[in-house]
């Protein structure tokens, strides 16, 4: 009953020329093989034909030569959590605009979430996303299907048929499944199909009225808090259920030191548990909210700096598997409200890499560790063959200058919505070129 997702989103209609492209004079970083060396890489027919130090200055006869100028050549980034808005919220973002934002951010594969209108809970809707992506998106798009009908948390979706149709994993979107029995059955049932369950871990009752992290800052601002335990309670429950069912489980975005400890303990027991963290929870904390800045309002909420530091430490130790942008476009109107009433969410596709590089420049994490959580780790989690630089692999590549300084102006974002918490922030490091299946889709 194991079915691999069909690569429909791969833009197969575009014919590749036989001519090779040679990327020379690059610093090649491939976390899958721990490679970090000067060299070059040849692309032909959308695939990586060869790579290594011997190609640093040599290009085959007739090849188009791209001089990387010593910049980093790495696998394209894989973003496992993107809220695209199509269908239903096209005024915020479409698959097309999201894919342009992705390309500009070095993201060559994005996984779109089922929180749309209608919810992606049927085979026909998975087909719809794949068709729209094939026709309009410039990066690979995969669909995360709903695991309960209408994300209602009560009735399972057709996990077997949805997986066969190409759903890459199953999620309940921004909502946790409160009913433990339903969660148990979802984990049990999905196991038969080898399907991955991705869960937002937040107790809906405990978090109901909260708008930011529970603690001193919330107390001073007079805002109702979201306790850390809200996340940990659901995560701990889920780990128990994994122990009981052996279902494949991924905690979508953890945000607290306690959650990290739960995941670490689960991994120590060799349970099929993984987890992700958003770029925001690695680089920002609750103090950034300052005077009620609603662009910093998100779920899970930004936590204290000790929690942020724990997230960094979890990445370093390998207990946190992947980094996601959790790109969540929102209207200016929905953000320009009193903090408690403003919507959650932040765009992040275009700032994913530059923000992550902050951790490199601050010395908190090695560049290799950061890239691993953005390439090969999500590829393995989702069963994708990309995310690595290997002969015969699909040529999803990025070239980036890790050092170029710049300042983000949200009006220049390609995303249809501009709700970036990094607006007017100083950044260091920038994507120079993005290549999807051998084709350059973004170039500065």
């Amino acid at each position, binding site marked *: *009953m194991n079915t691999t997702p069909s690569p429909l989103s791969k833009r197969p209609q575009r014919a590749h020329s036989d001519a090779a492209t040679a990327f020379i004079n690059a610093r090649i970083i491939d976390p899958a093989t721990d490679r970090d060396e000067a060299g070059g890489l040849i692309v032909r027919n959308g695939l990586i034909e060869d790579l290594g130090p011997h190609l640093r200055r040599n290009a085959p006869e007739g090849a188009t030569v791209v001089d990387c100028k010593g910049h980093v050549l790495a696998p394209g980034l894989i973003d496992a959590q993107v809220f695209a808005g199509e269908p239903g919220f096209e005024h915020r973002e479409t698959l097309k605009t999201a894919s342009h934002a992705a390309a500009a951010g070095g993201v060559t594969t994005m996984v779109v979430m089922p929180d749309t209108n209608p919810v992606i809970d049927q085979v026909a809707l998975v087909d719809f996303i794949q068709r729209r992506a094939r026709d309009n998106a410039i990066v690979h798009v995969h669909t995360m299907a709903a695991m*309960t*009908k209408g994300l209602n948390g*009560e*009735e*399972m*979706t*057709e*996990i*077997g*048929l949805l997986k066969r149709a190409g759903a890459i994993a199953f999620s309940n979107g921004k909502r946790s499944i409160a009913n433990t029995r*339903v969660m148990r*059955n979802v984990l*049990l*049932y999905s*196991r*038969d199909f080898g399907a991955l369950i991705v869960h937002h871990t937040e107790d809906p009752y405990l978090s109901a009225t909260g708008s930011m992290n529970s603690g001193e800052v919330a107390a001073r601002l007079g805002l109702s808090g979201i306790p850390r335990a809200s996340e940990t309670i659901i995560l701990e429950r889920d780990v128990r259920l994994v122990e009981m*069912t052996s279902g494949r489980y991924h905690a979508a975005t953890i945000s607290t030191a306690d959650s990290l400890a739960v995941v670490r303990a689960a991994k120590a027991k060799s349970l099929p548990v993984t987890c992700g963290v958003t770029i925001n929870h690695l680089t920002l904390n609750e103090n950034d909210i300052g005077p009620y800045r609603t662009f910093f309002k998100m779920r899970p909420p930004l936590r204290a700096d000790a929690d942020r530091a724990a997230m960094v430490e979890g990445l370093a130790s390998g207990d946190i598997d992947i980094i996601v942008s959790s790109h969540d476009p929102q209207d200016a109107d929905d953000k320009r409200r009193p903090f408690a009433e403003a919507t959650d969410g932040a765009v992040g596709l275009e700032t994913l890499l530059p923000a992550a590089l902050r951790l490199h420049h601050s010395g908190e994490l090695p560049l290799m560790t950061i890239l691993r959580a953005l390439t090969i780790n999500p590829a393995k989690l989702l069963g994708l063959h990309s995310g690595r630089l290997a002969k015969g692999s699909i040529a999803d590549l990025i070239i980036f200058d890790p050092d170029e300084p710049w300042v983000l102006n949200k009006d220049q974002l390609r995303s249809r919505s501009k709700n970036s918490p990094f607006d007017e922030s100083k950044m260091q490091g920038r994507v120079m070129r993005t290549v999807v299946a051998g084709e350059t889709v973004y170039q500065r």
Partner: protein
Amino acid sequence: MSLPIQTALMTNAVAKVETLHFPHRHLLTVEGLGVQEIHFLLDLADRFADENRQAGKRHDVLRGRTLINLFFENSTRTQASFEMAGKRLGADVMNMSVATSSVQKGETLIDTAVTLNAMRPDLIVVRHHAAGAVELLSQKVDCSVINAGDGSHQHPTQALLDALTIRRAKGRIEGLTVAICGDILHSRVARSNIILLNTLGARVRLAAPSTLLPAAPERLGAEVFTDMWKAVEGADVVMMLRLQRERMEGSYVPSVREYFHFFGLDHEKLARAKPDAIVMHPGPMNRGVEIASAVADHSSSVIREQVEMGVAARMAVLDALARNLTKR
């Protein structure tokens, strides 16, 4: 559980061998029945099955005996089957169903048992929605009790009629591979068949989505599959189970469409079984849910024979138990 009959009969070495083959007062479960006992019942049933096809089907072994069909849960075919079995053996048969009984007025199960017992019946056939209810009732009465299904626990006469059907179709049971597919979790038919078929030397496989399997299903004595295609591979018998409607829409399986796709018996899946494999279903069938219409009506299907064997198997059980009753 099953109480032995009076000691005098047990130790009577000169008694006819046949009478010693089923020394039980009740039939509450197939658990604990020996191979000889089961084949004794099947042999008896086999003869009744042949006689039932003749004109003169009437026996008088139960003449003067009273049989009560006590059904706390709706059933058409099982109740009719027991009624017919009792009448063909000459018993006076009375049907009591929950809709017309004092249970609706709040009487407890034990009070019902005591009340009925006071009327001095000889045999009571009981179906109840709660596992263990029939055994509880059997402790409070002086007559023989036959379990006609208690919750998700046991349905012994179904297992016997299934074994009889298989034995008649295949000539044997030992060594056969039987794939039981569907809602194992809630199925008394599956639990009874797993035990009985294992006792008789068949190799039992179970196929169901994990949500419809009990905990540690392999401990029941069967090989467990969540992929039905693999479960029916090379099987001699494919036994389908009914999926209750309330379990189809997202609680245990997401939809009828998905269930049928992965667990419904169609000709493609059946082609994986042996060419001469037989298809069984305890009924009533959900066509297009657990079984395709074309398969249900195909020549490999013995579903109608199962109904026929049901009467014969129940006659055998009634006859065997009545032989152990004291003359009153």
